[in-house]
């Protein structure tokens, strides 16, 4: 346990700084700042908090900032940390959007946005590929994975339907498998590299 817990404004500014230097994912930076620089959490605590942040719906880094802020300063700390993650990036991204919008009819803007978009798709797919590497040995999960890609990507299946058709069975089978492994077995936490 740390002796000198961070205050509300320190939480806000720490997360503001992390978010401002994060292009394409805040999590790797968050780990360095929270664990190594500030020593607010031990490595083990960070990994466990991240695991929960990933299991809860919503953006992982925002969830993590909320939980961390809450641990030290309750609701006010949670709010301050999340705002740190979001406030300045929201202003920046809004300015960028309005700039592009006001030149949206210009062929150069159109072309540039298409090029940026093509790269963005690449970044998204590469993230998916990296996440596959962090997958635990859940073989049946591959069926759910491929099924989701085809049903949503090609078939246009809605998200609630996807959760019903693939999500619920995937959780049920995993729970059944874990029970089969026995409760006493040591559990290794899987941490993915990116949000």
């Amino acid at each position, binding site marked *: 346990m740390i002796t000198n817990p961070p205050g509300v404004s320190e939480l806000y500014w720490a997360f503001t700084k992390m978010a*401002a*230097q*994060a*292009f394409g994912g805040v999590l790797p930076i968050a780990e360095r700042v929270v664990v190594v620089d500030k020593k607010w959490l031990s490595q083990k605590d960070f990994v466990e*908090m991240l*695991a*929960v942040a990933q*299991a*809860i*719906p*919503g*953006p992982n880094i*925002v*969830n993590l900032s*909320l*939980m961390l802020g809450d*641990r030290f300063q309750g609701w006010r700390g*949670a709010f301050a940390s999340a705002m740190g993650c*979001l406030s300045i990036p*929201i202003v*920046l*991204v809004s300015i*960028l*959007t*309005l700039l592009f*919008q*006001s030149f949206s009819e210009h*062929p150069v803007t*159109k*072309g*540039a*946005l*298409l*090029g*940026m*978009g*093509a*790269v*963005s*798709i*690449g*970044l*998204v*797919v*590469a*993230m*998916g590929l990296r*996440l596959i590497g962090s997958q635990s040995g859940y073989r049946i*999960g591959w069926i759910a994975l491929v099924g*989701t890609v085809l049903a*949503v*990507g090609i078939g*246009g299946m809605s998200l*609630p339907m*996807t959760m019903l058709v693939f*999500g619920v069975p*995937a*959780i049920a089978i995993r*729970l059944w498998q874990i029970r089969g492994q026995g409760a006493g077995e040591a559990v290794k*936490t899987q941490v993915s590299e990116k949000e």
Partner: protein
Amino acid sequence: MLSAITPDVGWPLIIDLFLRFLLLSLLATGGALSLAPAMHKYLVADKGLLTDAQFMGSIALAQSAPGPNVLFVTVLGWQAAGFWGAVAMTVGCLMPSAILAVYAGRKIVSNPNSYWMRGLREGLAPIAIGLIFATGIVLLKPWINEWRVGLVTVVAIAIAYFSRLAPVYLIAAGAVLGGFGLLQPGS
């Protein structure tokens, strides 16, 4: 300029956007990008508020600015319905999961590897990854006949996967290529 910031779209639409994203938020497993196919279906296919190019551009703009990827929702909101659209969709998308994170966090953090949490996390991981690939397909589908766009995507996948180059440089390179009209020479 002001009309671009607050276009007259009517409050029913803003409320509809807010409620829709409120519900979607609770199904966001594995990050905000896994919601992109559902958002595309709603904003582009059903409502016609955005074109395919605008939708893809929104993700590109969010990735080229610092901060969490979830902010592509803010960009989508700006383009779909101006300032209030951005507010409604951003707040709608973040609020439910934020409340859940604090409450669930307090309960779970003492034992994150309990039976139920492990089942939930490991069971949903394949779906989350599948949704990310589906996002790629949904975004690329409209450009299926533009081989240059696909080529840029494939090269970006390879560089992003095999190197540690910061994504912003790749996006800048894409902007330059596209800005010179190299991706759609016909138009």
